[in-house]
């Protein structure tokens, strides 16, 4: 069985969520809260939808100028932390180990289970297919969100990219839709973490000990996987 917390650390194991990853997770959470709250205040200054204004008690920054200061402060936090997270996930093989593969039948099975409110998640070390899809999806959404943000911030300096969202208002709309996707993810993510509290504890304390997976081993596995797929062809 998995080792409990507080036991002497085995040199061959590491926590499921290493300290660096936990720091990046919570830094991202703080940066996202600031980006969303200040973004809502900036949105209120020139709304995209006449029926939608964010009440001031959910926004960050006293006025538009304060909200812009917060937004352009947290963007560095988000971008630097995000780049560190991507480098970490690729370098350590965590993305491949935790987020791949995604198979359609497994996704359908997990969706059916979730709809029956069967949300058991006994083995924290394995993400199910829906979790993998959502985590990869949110990473992609945040990357697109940074891109639309860059184009809103610098439509002239990055004019080569401005076609991506049609025009300036297109980039604003994409940035808004990205926000909706992120807020939607956060609501589901937080709700599930509260329903299965050991996941929340694991992201604070590190979770169960798992065998160490050095990058070299991951690379070897990758090479052999390529070989097998090559021979299968």
């Amino acid at each position, binding site marked *: 069985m998995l080792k409990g917390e507080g036991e002497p650390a085995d040199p061959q194991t590491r926590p499921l969520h290493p300290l660096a990853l936990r720091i990046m997770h919570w830094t991202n959470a703080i940066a996202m809260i600031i980006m969303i709250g200040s973004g809502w205040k900036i949105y209120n200054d020139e709304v995209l939808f006449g029926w939608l204004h964010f009440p001031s008690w959910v926004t960050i920054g006293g006025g538009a100028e304060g909200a812009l*200061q917060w937004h352009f*402060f947290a963007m560095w936090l988000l971008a630097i932390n995000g780049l560190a997270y991507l480098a970490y996930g690729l370098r350590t093989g965590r993305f491949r180990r935790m987020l791949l593969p995604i198979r359609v039948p497994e996704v359908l099975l997990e969706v059916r289970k979730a709809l029956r409110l069967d949300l058991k998640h006994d083995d924290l070390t394995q993400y199910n297919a829906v979790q993998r899809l959502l985590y990869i999806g949110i990473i992609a959404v945040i990357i697109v969100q940074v891109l639309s943000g860059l184009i809103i911030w610098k439509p002239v*300096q990055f004019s080569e990219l401005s076609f991506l969202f049609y025009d300036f208002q297109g980039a604003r709309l994409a940035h808004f839709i990205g926000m909706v996707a992120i807020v939607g993810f956060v609501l589901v993510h937080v709700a599930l973490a509260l329903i299965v509290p050991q996941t929340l504890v694991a992201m604070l304390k590190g979770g169960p000990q798992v065998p160490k997976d050095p990058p070299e081993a991951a690379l070897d596995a990758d090479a052999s996987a390529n070989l097998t797929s090559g021979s299968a062809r």
Partner: protein
Amino acid sequence: MSLRTPSSSVFRPKRGIDQSVLEENKQLVETFNRRKVLRGALSLGALTMLTGCDVTSRDAVQGVLKTVSQWNDRAQAALFRPNHLAPTFSPSQVVKPPRFNAYYDVEDVAPVDAATWKLELAGLIQDKRPWTASQIYELPEQEIIVRHICVEGWDYIGQWSGVNLRRFLERIGADLAAKYVSFRCADDYYGSIDMPSALHPQTLLATKYAGEPITDPFGFPLRLRTAVKLGFKNPKWITAMEVTNTYRGGYWEDRGFNWFSGI
């Protein structure tokens, strides 16, 4: 003679002091606990320190945000491509009239009299003779059809013409190595931009919109129009221009908006 009768002050009790209160609270006075008083005083002190701390931390947060905003000025200057042109559009896409923006409503615009108007020059400029409107309107014109983007999030395509600011700065013998070009306006608005943005090929001292002289609400007789800055960095009704190495800020910038505000 020997004894003075006490004056009948309204503050002097007519009878002796009522001792019953002391009797009633005798128990309390006897059990008076010095330690409890100390503890209470400490809590009170801690409370005042907490509020003090709150104010200080709010100032600290403001300080951090201001520092980051200044750092963002430098980051934007580093990102700025001096010869990269903003996208341009066709005359059929031009919005007429342009969209109004100022720190007051359009009804409160005070028109400028072109007959008495002058452009004053100051700072690191060799020829500081002021310019009249007719002199300015005789200068060679450049036209740009570019997107105006407001910090609030709206935008429109506008067609502006006037003298290229770099050519004008060269003509008056301005120090092109100076850091800033700063403007003062008839409506007490003021602003400043960095020299690289001032020298950008799509930065004009605009006199016309869609081929006609700019109308009163949009800055007649002279305004700045640069394709590389947000709307509020384009002062209207300019009355004075200074080339300087001293940071002059701006109307909105001094109220917390980012100074560089390049797009």
